[in-house]
């Protein structure tokens, strides 16, 4: 019999962007709330692989919930990022037309966006002006639909910010907490057995993303099936920072299916995307056809000067969905159990989803909300040496010498930042990487990798051979030098 690790009014399952937005919203109220994550860190699921482009979206007929949350979430993002010290850049988007037919499609899109009240949209048909806005754009582009509110955000930065802020305001985070069973009790709610102990909850918000179907299945809710699409992308070296200023996107592939060249908040350039249905749900492989056969030629059609040799990291994201619209509603089996499965642009919508779930859905099924007077919306990120002035750097090093020891040469990340990331919850190399950018640059951890392993080993008090990249089974180095020779002693090769 496991002892009860915690009793909460609301438990959120899954620490991706949706769960993070919900828990942060919950932390504004006088109630007890916790978020459970099965992985050793937050933001280790689908959100990790999103592109971080936040846009107001195109309203579509069969997705009313997406329509209402996407634009609202997009417009909420700037303030939230300012409060949470999350990198945000209002880059704007250029949806381009290569011919008259595409131009007509842009004109139609403009009308639709205006009708839905999307602010800051205009059609740019002056080729000269277009080239002033985006100097490296293809000569073949004749017009572009400019949406000024499209922004780029750090996806993991937002999740860290939301959850750290929620925790600072009283919410609890449990990692390595895989939910194994849920027992419903009509009087008091639910009892959850997890790999991190058992929990009691009045309400459950199932934001388990790709695994939301499985979690719902624990209360015998089989009302939806999670599927999704794989999206292959390539990160390019920040040496070509500025090659695009806006998110430049091909009209041929609107909706979730976009070929785009995008700036990022870190200066890297992001290319996307080869969007596919794949047999295995959650498959994150990249393919040669996707990278070299699709993304590069298509992105070079938009920006012909894009140099392929500047690629530093191809990767795949997987966007879970449970139908044409976002699924955000109480379970038909138990109304105190709220299912959330977003879909394309879910990241844009996330903040509005958090608000919608907490302020509308949960009260509609009986949760009492009372504002917490002491709620503090402000969270400070780890100080990043890279982003500081020389004076600030000197001052920080004066306080903690580890900030003067640079561990990651490509992204100028100091040991102080890595230690602070571990203090804030990083347990793995990816956890350190997403919090500090150590290993995210052009050498992809070649230089800092062994050093980060050592720091993780020291700070966590575990041997280097137990440090993982992203949790169980992903150990970075397997043996100590000489160990294999001692193993083989006696027997000859």
């Amino acid at each position: 019999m496991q002892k009860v690790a915690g009793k909460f009014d609301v438990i959120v399952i899954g620490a991706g962007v949706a769960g993070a937005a919900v828990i942060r919203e919950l932390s504004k109220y006088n109630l007890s709330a916790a978020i459970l994550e099965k992985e050793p860190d937050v933001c280790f699921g689908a959100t990790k692989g999103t592109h971080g482009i936040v846009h107001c979206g195109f309203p579509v007929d069969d997705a009313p919930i997406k329509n209402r949350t996407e634009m609202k979430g997009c417009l909420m993002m700037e303030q939230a990022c300012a409060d949470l010290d999350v990198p945000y850049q209002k880059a704007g988007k250029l949806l381009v037309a290569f011919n008259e037919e595409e131009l007509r499609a842009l004109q139609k899109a403009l009308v639709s966006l205006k009708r839905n009240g999307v602010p800051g949209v205009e059609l740019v048909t002056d080729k000269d002006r277009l080239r002033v806005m985006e100097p490296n754009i293809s000569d073949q582009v004749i017009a572009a639909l400019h949406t000024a509110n499209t922004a780029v955000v750090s996806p993991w930065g937002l999740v860290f910010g939301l959850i750290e802020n929620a925790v600072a305001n009283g919410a609890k985070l449990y990692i390595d907490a895989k939910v194994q069973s849920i027992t419903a009790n009509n009087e008091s709610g639910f009892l959850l057995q997890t790999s991190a102990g058992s929990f009691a909850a009045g309400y459950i918000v199932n934001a388990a993303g790709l695994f939301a179907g499985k979690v719902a299945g624990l209360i015998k809710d089989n009302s939806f099936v999670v599927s999704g699409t794989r999206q292959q992308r390539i990160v390019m070296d920040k040496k070509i920072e500025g090659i695009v200023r806006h998110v430049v996107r091909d009209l041929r592939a609107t909706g979730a299916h976009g070929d785009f060249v995008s700036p990022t908040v870190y200066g890297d350039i992001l290319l996307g995307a080869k969007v596919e249905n794949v047999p295995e749900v959650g498959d994150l492989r990249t393919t040669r056809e996707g990278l070299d056969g699709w993304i590069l030629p298509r992105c070079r059609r938009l920006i012909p000067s894009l140099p392929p040799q500047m690629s530093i990291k191809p990767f795949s994201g997987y966007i879970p969905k449970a139908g044409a619209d976002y699924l955000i509603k109480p379970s038909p089996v138990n109304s105190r159990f709220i299912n959330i499965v977003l879909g394309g642009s879910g990241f844009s919508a996330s903040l509005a989803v958090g608000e919608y779930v907490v302020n509308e859905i949960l009260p509609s099924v009986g949760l009492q909300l009372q504002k917490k007077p002491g709620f503090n919306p402000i969270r400070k990120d780890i100080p990043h040496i890279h982003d500081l002035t020389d004076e600030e750097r000197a001052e920080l090093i004066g306080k903690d010498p580890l900030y003067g020891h640079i561990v990651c040469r490509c992204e100028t990340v100091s040991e102080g930042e890595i230690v602070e990331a571990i203090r804030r919850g990083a347990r793995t190399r990816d956890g350190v990487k997403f919090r500090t950018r150590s290993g995210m640059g052009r050498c992809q951890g070649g230089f800092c990798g062994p050093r980060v392993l050592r720091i993780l080993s020291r700070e966590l008090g575990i041997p280097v051979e137990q440090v993982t990249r992203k949790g169980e089974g992903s150990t970075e180095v397997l043996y100590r030098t000489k160990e294999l020779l001692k193993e083989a002693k006696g027997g000859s090769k």
Partner: protein
Amino acid sequence: MSGIIERSVDVAVIGGGPGGLGAAIKAREAGAKNVVLLERSEELGGMLPQCIHNGFGLHYFKEELSGPAYIHRLVKELAKTDVDVMTQTMAIKLEGTRITALTEKTLTRINAKAVILGMGCRERSRGNIRIPGHRPAGVFTAGTAQRLINVEGYIPGKKVVILGSGDIGMIMARRLTLEGAEVVCLVELLPFIGGLIRNEVQCLRDFNIPVYTSHTVSDVIGKNRVEKVVISQIDKELKPIPGTEKEFEADTLLLSVGLIPENELSTMTGVKLEPTGGPQVDDLWQTSVSGIFAGGNVVHVHDLADYVTESSEMAAVNAVKYINGYLPVERKVNVKGGKNIRYVVPNTIVSNQPVSFFMRVTWPLKNATVRIGGLVSKKYAFVRPSEQIRIDVPAEMMKGFREDIIVNCDGEEDVAR
């Protein structure tokens, strides 16, 4: 109170590898008064402390040494000088000859009269060459694995596939085998082994390591840790041929797929780069920015550490001349690679001093002749991309030379390799 330290020196050397060490010692010897050496790592030596194999020093010390031994000697020499050695110091900004560096003490601005770049090179990564598949732990560049095994004391895994038959790849094949791991195979994109024949014999043949030339890694399988590596034969455009896949069980993939001179700092202050990634240099090893000199692998990737030290020493001697105001600039002649020459260094000739031309060919040839413009020509039984060519031209031949120099390499196709 910001705590920023401002200091002025004659010469600042960035990088404490075989080049930077040589440059710092030489700069002091040549008369620079204040010399500072910046090294970002915990120890001096750059890549050499992890290169525990032999093959260093024959040219410079007239004795065959291991990498650590080579560095040991240079460090001993350095210790006799009053060069200010700053380890765990990262130069983060270069503005002309002014360096901003971070240490555990504070942020330091170093106003140098001359700067010598000795940052060396870095390895191309998986992302650079876009190897598809899962992205598990267990994919390492060969140099990172070498550091782990030989310096830090960890072995990445015990069933290893190596991509790239350059010298580091082959040396790691031997090293892993000796340490008790199994090298499942070594895979090379080109139809021939990339590194020295000596390494082919003593690192691969000695240990019966299977080699697949004209192959590449076409897939990596394993969600958390490498489980399998798939290789494929490649076509003329270097693309994998469907249907030729071979799958190997492995827990580790090592990549030895090329080195790139590390010039992010150089470009910050407008140092012009060549397509190889190294700065344009003249025969005095001065870059396009006055007062900034460069030597060793930051200019181009050398076969021999000895030449890294040597070129950096030359950069140092000229840096001191520059400070003293008598850099022997006579005129400017461009040097360009012609037929079958992938690159040639230096890129311009400005002095009347003897010049060492370094170059690599694009494709292997036999019975080859390399011509340095109309100045000299040299015959070679074989020329190979992996084997750097060095041709020394004496001062008297350089004197008064005013035309651009085109370097060409002619010869017969080499079928055997």
